[in-house]
């Protein structure tokens, strides 16, 4: 069976959820091999085998950490040239998309970014589902040239539990001589973001967001989020006002989220905000304006003041839990 390369999304060895989704897609196309950038001692092969990877290539070089994008693209091009995989699947992070971009030029291959699904088409081509225009349309796009490259958005599918049972996994260390040219953009300093003790926004299964309607007071939004075990997001208006960090902005120029539940509070529902949350399974809106466009998208909406509604909902859920109801 043909080999499919899957780039592992991980933080210090802890594999992020997208990786399981990518491996699940890869199994439909062939035999998945994981590509792991980082020190081998952080790697837990079982995390990858569980979702069907039969092999993992470990690539460890300071350049992958200290330089922007180009070294990883070079390494992947080397793997494509030497292993001749049938496709390369990459997480749709900012970095992932840029790595994919460079790889597509190096290998003269077609590229689809931000896919929500990947299958083998009737004609044998790699076929993707791709939401476009802020999620208002979904397109079917096939890749017709070279080694198909696809980046997949997080939360696109639910990987079956124990999909690959635990198949034996082969670990192979790959050394690629990274060129000096690829090291030209150097990361001279990196500041990790403070851990807020909440789920990662892009991967969260529940997101509670606040907008200009919070007036800058996110207490009710945060308390409701914590009650649901949710990530907190914000509209650009809230970010521009300095009320919330840009890393937590949902929308076209922020993070795209695809949770089971999205709660928009004090957010009007501008097209650029919707672009980042439209694919949410269930949408709840709390807004004092009954004509706010966000209600047109909501499965459930409350017309009212967000603070009183969210505080009451938090209390109600807490008390139901306390009484075991």
């Amino acid at each position, binding site marked *: 069976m043909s080999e499919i390369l899957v780039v592992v999304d991980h933080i210090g060895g802890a594999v992020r959820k997208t990786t399981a989704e990518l491996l699940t897609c890869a199994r439909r196309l062939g035999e998945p091999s994981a590509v792991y950038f980082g020190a081998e001692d952080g790697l837990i092969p079982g995390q990858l085998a569980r979702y069907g990877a039969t092999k993992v290539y470990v690539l460890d070089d300071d350049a992958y950490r200290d330089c922007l994008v180009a070294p990883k693209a070079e390494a992947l091009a080397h793997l494509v040239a030497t292993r001749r995989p049938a496709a390369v699947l990459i997480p749709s992070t900012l970095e992932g998309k840029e790595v994919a971009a460079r790889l597509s030029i190096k290998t003269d291959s077609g590229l689809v970014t931000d896919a929500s699904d990947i299958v083998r088409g009737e004609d044998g081509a790699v076929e993707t589902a791709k939401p476009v225009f802020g999620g208002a349309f979904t397109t079917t796009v096939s890749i017709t040239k070279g080694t198909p490259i696809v980046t997949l958005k997080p939360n696109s599918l639910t990987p079956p539990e124990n999909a690959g049972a635990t198949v034996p996994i082969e670990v192979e260390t790959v050394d690629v001589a990274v060129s000096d040219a690829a090291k030209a953009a150097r990361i*001279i300093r990196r500041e990790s973001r403070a851990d807020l003790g909440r789920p990662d926004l892009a991967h969260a299964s529940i997101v509670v967001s606040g907008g200009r309607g919070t007036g800058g007071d996110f207490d009710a939004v945060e308390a409701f989020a914590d009650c649901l075990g949710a990530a907190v997001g914000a509209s650009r208006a809230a970010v521009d006002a300095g009320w919330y960090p*840009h890393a937590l902005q949902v929308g076209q120029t922020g993070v795209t989220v695809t949770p089971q539940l999205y709660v928009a509070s004090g957010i009007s529902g501008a097209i650029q905000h919707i672009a980042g949350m439209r694919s949410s399974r269930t949408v709840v809106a709390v807004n004092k304006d009954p004509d706010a466009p966000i209600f047109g998208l909501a499965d459930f909406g409350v017309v009212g003041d967000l603070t009183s509604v969210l505080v009451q909902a938090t209390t109600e859920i807490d008390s139901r839990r306390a009484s075991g109801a």
Partner: protein
Amino acid sequence: MNIVVCVKYVPATADRRFSAVDITVDRAGVEGTLCELDEHAIEEALRITEADEGEVTVVTVGPEEAADAIARGLQMGAHKGVHIVDDALHGSDAAATSLVLAAAVRRIGYDIVLCGMASTDGAMGVVPAMLAERLGVPQLTLASQVTVEGGTVTIRRESDTATEHIEASGPLVLSVTDRSNEPRYPSFKGIMAAKRKLVETWSPAELGIAPEVGPEAAGTRVSAFAARPARTGGQIVSDEGEGGVRLAEYLVAQKLV
């Protein structure tokens, strides 16, 4: 420091739709505009050259009407424009667009190629990285802040998990986000001056790359599209003092808590 700014002409955000004829973006009767996110790239280029010196050229690959995007750039203060127009370009993929742009910026000559973070129609966010790859120069992309000192450029980038400070020396490709600056509005003087600025029109053939662009050469093929069905049956309640309880009940009924 000579800067080439790549700008895209896009359909207005509210009017984005598909043509059932060839499954590409329907531009018929749709108002187009300079991509809002590319205004930040123009602004950054103007700031860099105002602080130092040099010339700003705006370049676009697009249909006849895309001349409007160049005109806007010139009104903001760019010095000249290059429009690469050709019917064969309709339906090109990102790789082909970057091929044409790379040839164009090479011919224009540059210290920095400046791009927006993403277009508002294709929205792939890949053309700047592709350009850097083709030109064989460093990429400093998705900058929320740019500092230029001598020949060295340093950016701040909000990556997926951290804030990174990245440095490279020119020539290079730089892209900026909507957080990098506040784009200026063209002044009356700027609008008048723009009328006298030079805009050159080139064809891909003149750049020596005609066969590699257009839908035939594309690496991807769109076979179908569908509008996302509108959400129906949404239930909207008015808060008469028990809105929070109703919300909690809904979440419980949906097994979301």
